[in-house]
């Protein structure tokens, strides 16, 4: 692995510094990276941002024999820009125009505007040089990590690290209140509106290994609106 040329992430982020973007879930050792890692970016103009990455990427293809594989899903407005060396994925840019799409969580579309409006600058020291990146406001970073945990925890135990990050960074009752207020303002669990969602998920065989607590929780979520409707009917008759 030592013979894989290093990608100069600082150079890429300097190139996009004037664009309206945020880097979410910034890796701990950024701008250093592990082979195969990814960088999640939310922006308001995917085309412009990716073009800048590609212009720098040309040099890596030309001089260092990298391959850049680009795959877009225009329904979700998501593009992956993968830097490959041979058959090895070295670095992935996950670029979202607007919010990423989640299966277990519904997020209001206008949250992306709020994220970009409230972004903060972070100065990064890379060897002798410094450069600036855009990251979400602290509260939004916590929300994103929590969503990431909720979305994946059943299938990816490693996502527990995001929950731990949230726990470690909510310092007091005030933080906790702000976190939940903002979370509930923009986020909705799938199934709250669509009472058949858990049943659909069962059909799709997505709940293969869930613990009893989760099963009860999902069953309750499924039955709660029915129970509520029945209570309303009873109340009207009384």
């Amino acid at each position: 692995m030592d013979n894989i040329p290093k990608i100069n992430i600082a150079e890429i982020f300097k190139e996009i510094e004037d664009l309206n973007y945020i880097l979410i879930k910034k890796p701990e050792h950024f701008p250093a990276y592990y082979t195969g890692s990814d960088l999640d970016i939310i922006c308001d103009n995917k085309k412009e941002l990716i073009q800048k990455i590609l212009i720098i990427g040309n040099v890596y293809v030309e001089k260092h024999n990298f391959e850049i594989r680009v795959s877009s899903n225009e329904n979700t407005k998501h593009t992956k820009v993968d830097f490959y060396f041979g058959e090895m994925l070295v670095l992935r840019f996950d670029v979202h125009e607007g919010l990423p799409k989640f299966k277990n969580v519904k997020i209001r579309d206008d949250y992306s505007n709020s994220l970009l409006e409230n972004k903060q600058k972070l100065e990064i020291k890379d060897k002798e040089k410094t450069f600036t990146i855009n990251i979400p406001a602290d509260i939004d970073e916590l929300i994103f990590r929590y969503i990431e945990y909720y979305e994946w925890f059943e299938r990816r135990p490693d996502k527990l690290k995001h929950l731990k990050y949230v726990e470690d960074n909510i310092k007091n009752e005030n933080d906790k209140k702000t976190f939940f207020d903002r979370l509930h303002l923009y986020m909705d669990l799938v199934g709250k509106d669509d009472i058949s969602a858990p049943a659909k998920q069962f059909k799709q065989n997505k709940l293969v290994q869930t613990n009893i607590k989760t099963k009860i929780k999902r069953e309750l979520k499924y039955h709660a609106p029915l129970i509520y409707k029945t209570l309303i009917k009873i109340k009207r008759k009384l």
Partner: protein
Amino acid sequence: MQKTPNNKSQHCVFILWSNGFKHAPEIIDIIRNYPEIEIQKVFLYQTDKIKKFIDQVYANDDIPKVHIRKKTKYIKKSKNPNVAVVLAINHRPEEILRGRGEFRHIECQRVKDLKDKIRNQFNPKKADGSRIEEHVIHATDSEHHVDYLLRVLGYKEGLQHFTKTPNQIIPVPHHIKSFSHFTLKKVPIDSIYCHILTGTRHSFSTEIMPLKDSPHYKFLTGQPEIYEEYIKEFSGIYITDDYSPQKFSNLIKDFSYLSPPHELNYIITDEFQLNKYVIRNGLHRTAILKSQGYKEALILIKE
């Protein structure tokens, strides 16, 4: 007349009537070299019903019908079923309001000047040297007319056919099928092949052949006549992009692949066999790279 500032590029269409065909190369050269006008397509259109076609061309014109009847009389007599069509982009439209009352309309002064220049030069002449109003060329007044005319010419989507973007990230010519996945890769230049037309314009076929056998490469390696013949034979029918030996020669001067501001103008290919690529866009540029001695080239491979 009132000038309207407009910074947005606009499309325009020129129709070359059969009475101007003998001057077609010169007329196209005038359009090609006119400031801020960039030819996008040149093609022949054939119709069995020239009278109906003329009526359709002028149907949206904001000028009195009497005037249109007068100025199209000579074309309707023509036995030639062909017209040449030039679709161009006007990078600096100069819109003006012209005409009176119900015939008041917007047109572009730049396009009008170009049209008049061609008419002055190539319309038939009277004995005293002044021009006869049997126009060799027609030009559209606005993009609305362009859209309408392209539909008349058989493009169901109208102007959208030429302005659609086959890829959401990088600039790609409209004639390439939409794609959302691609790879940028450096490959040996000898693994790049091209589609070449063979035969004549009346009986032709398409072959995939190595770059070194293409008329384009031969143009650069001491056999320019092969490319000249190739363009002459197939232009306007199977080759509708604006190619000419002169334009190719101009491209060679100071050519530097993927240098600013063209960093994203990749040679676009498909992988037709394992590690063999056929060019979809960029044959002229690849031929130049090969003639310059490059052994490898950065290409875009569609998936």
